[in-house]
């Protein structure tokens, strides 16, 4: 970034932010039409409540951050798989699997000091999720089964497994026998790290995860190879990389990150595994977060906070407007996905490649590859450049 004038920096920032901002505006506009048609409230008043509930006060921002943590985990899960060319729609199932295994370690391996018990619980969450990721990868590598459908099916299977565990083996043996596990002991719980706020240490863990995501993909050879294979598997094979290995490793890590998220959610927020622990779609919202963040580490953090804010704020919107349903927030999140993925519609002028030679045939191929190989032509993360040049 050396030698850039302030104007250039401003332009670069605008370039980065242009599409996300346009997508958010468009989503809010379309969302306001939905509000107009389904309620008597003024959409802008409703949005005002939503904004206030997500970012307006210290306490609402606290809720937003708490909400953002699992979303950032699932977004990381989707992102690392996507970087390797895999579409992981199974973060929900991996999240659930991680929660189950973390709960198991949390409630069965008691009597350990927190310094051992807590890391073990987190590790169990990671492994539980990565096992689910690994199953997907193995079926893809061995049988060529599409990960899209396999991951979705595994989501359902994970939910049923969770139901089985909390009604069967893990059932808390206390009348009146609620379908839930016993409470996880203090030695395996995560608490708040800022007095007076609810946001828990999971935030530090997920930020660590974001940093490792960045560091792994851009600073290590293994991550570099994963990116090569993700953008162009044929070239990866040519350069002596194994696509199968990359698929397995990335889904293993993706599952692990989602599973870690599930573990954190259980030991920091819910305190025990319940049959209704996963009524929320952490997995699919995580995809939206990843996309809005352009699979970029910093982007994931910011979009995670934004989505956390929309979720947290939608509660306040529902409460204060009294007739705008919180599901409008889901509509807005969905619209953000659509407008981000379809961001080309906001392009004012068709951008063309700068080509140094007039070779239209090559150029044609190039354009095709741009969209085939890397359907999201990803700008390099800003922090990478800063880091490298430093």
């Amino acid at each position, binding site marked *: 970034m050396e030698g850039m004038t302030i104007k250039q920096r401003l332009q670069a920032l605008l370039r980065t932010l242009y599409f996300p901002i346009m997508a958010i505006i468009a989503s809010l506009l379309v969302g306001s039409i939905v509000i107009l048609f389904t309620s008597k409230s003024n959409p802008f008043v409703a949005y005002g409540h939503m904004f206030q509930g997500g970012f307006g006060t210290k306490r609402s921002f606290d809720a937003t951050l708490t909400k953002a943590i699992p979303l950032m985990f699932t977004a990381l899960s989707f992102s690392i798989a996507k970087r390797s060319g895999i579409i992981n729609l199974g973060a929900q199932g991996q999240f659930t699997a991680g929660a189950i295994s973390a709960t198991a370690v949390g409630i069965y391996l008691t009597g350990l000091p927190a310094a051992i018990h807590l890391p073990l619980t987190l590790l169990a969450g990671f492994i539980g999720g990565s096992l689910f990721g690994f199953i997907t990868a193995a079926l893809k590598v061995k049988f060529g089964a599409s990960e899209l459908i396999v991951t979705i099916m595994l989501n359902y299977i994970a939910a049923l497994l969770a139901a089985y565990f909390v009604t069967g083996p893990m059932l808390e043996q206390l009348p*009146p026998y609620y379908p839930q596990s016993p409470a996880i002991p203090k030695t395996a719980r995560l608490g708040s790290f800022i007095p007076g706020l609810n946001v828990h240490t999971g935030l530090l863990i997920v930020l660590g995860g974001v940093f490792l995501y960045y560091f792994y993909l851009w600073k290590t050879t293994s991550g570099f190879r994963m990116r090569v294979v993700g953008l162009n598997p044929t070239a990866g094979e040519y350069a002596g990389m194994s696509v199968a290995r990359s698929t397995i490793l990335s889904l293993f890590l993706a599952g692990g990150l989602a599973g870690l998220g599930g573990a954190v959610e259980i030991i920091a927020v*819910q305190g025990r595994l319940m049959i209704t622990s996963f009524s929320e779609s952490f997995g699919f919202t995580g995809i939206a977060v990843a996309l809005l963040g352009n699979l970029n580490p910093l982007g994931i953090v910011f979009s995670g906070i934004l989505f956390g804010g929309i979720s947290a704020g939608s509660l306040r919107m529902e409460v204060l407007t009294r007739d705008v349903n919180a599901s409008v927030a889901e509509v807005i999140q969905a619209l953000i996905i659509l407008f981000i993925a379809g961001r080309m519609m906001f392009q004012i002028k068709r951008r063309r490649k700068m080509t140094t030679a007039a070779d239209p045939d090559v150029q044609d191929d190039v354009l095709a590859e741009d969209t085939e190989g890397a359907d999201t032509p990803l700008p390099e993360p800003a922090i990478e450049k800063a880091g490298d040049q430093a």
Partner: protein
Amino acid sequence: MRKTWTKLLAITVVLVLAIGVVAACDSGEKKDDGVTKVALIMEGAVSDMSWNATAFEGLKKIEKNGAQIGHTENTPVSDAAAAIRTYADDGYKVIFMSSSSYQDLAMQEAEKYPEIQFFLINSGVTAENVRSFAIQDAEQGYLMGALAALLTKTGTIGYIGGLEIAPILNGAKGFEQGAKYVNPDVKIISQNTGSMDDVNAAKELGKAFVGQGVDVLCPMANQASLGVMEAAEEMGIMAIGSGLNQETVAPTAAVVAIVKDTSIAYEAAYKAYQAGSMPMEVLPMGAAQGVVFVGDYYLEVDQAIKDQIDDIQKKLASGEIKINLD
């Protein structure tokens, strides 16, 4: 260059909009006008025609008692704390939480808001500002089981539950004991579909039950119950409803509904709060409190059977019949 300016313009528009939004919300700030504000936090949808619907009915009854009400639905456990805080910030004084899943969280949050009275539905804990009442789902199941066992001609009856949460599981236990109480030889098939939403699964399961000889079906699965009622209607057997208005989808099959009108429980709890007369122990809300009762019969049923069921209802209310939940 022009592109940059267009983008700049776009971003300016956003900022203006955002400021407008913040300004808009500031104008509608709360003012305390002495009316008690009562909130209800639900895990499911109010449109479930069952558990949450009757909870919402209860809230509306509370509104008729002069309170100002607010509700949130589809609130997962992870959002419950935020919901509580939102209501607390908005000056709510009473918060009902309609699921046992909320128990841990509610206890945690209740400590932070001593001025707010919490009511936990189907929980087993209490604290200074936390009261719990336990809806006697088992009693509902007991009555259903007893009636089904009296009605059956084939000697086989079926219970279909939804998600395996406490009310559903307790209902199943009650169902079994009630059936055995009137007829120790009756064969009981009892299963859960694992979902309150998947109506079709409940319906198909109901039909499969009929294949096993079941001739009286009893659902307890919130909105999925409707599927069971439809199955009974289509297969030409009898059904016993578990909530309000479920008979509408089964005009020739629905015998009666064993109603668990939780709205009565909500209203009763609120009245006790206003009166300041709340014991510390967990309040049972069942036949004794008029929450669980046998509704109007839709079809012709022998008076003897009706009488026997009334008798059982009285015995449940008086505590003469105790249901074992272990």
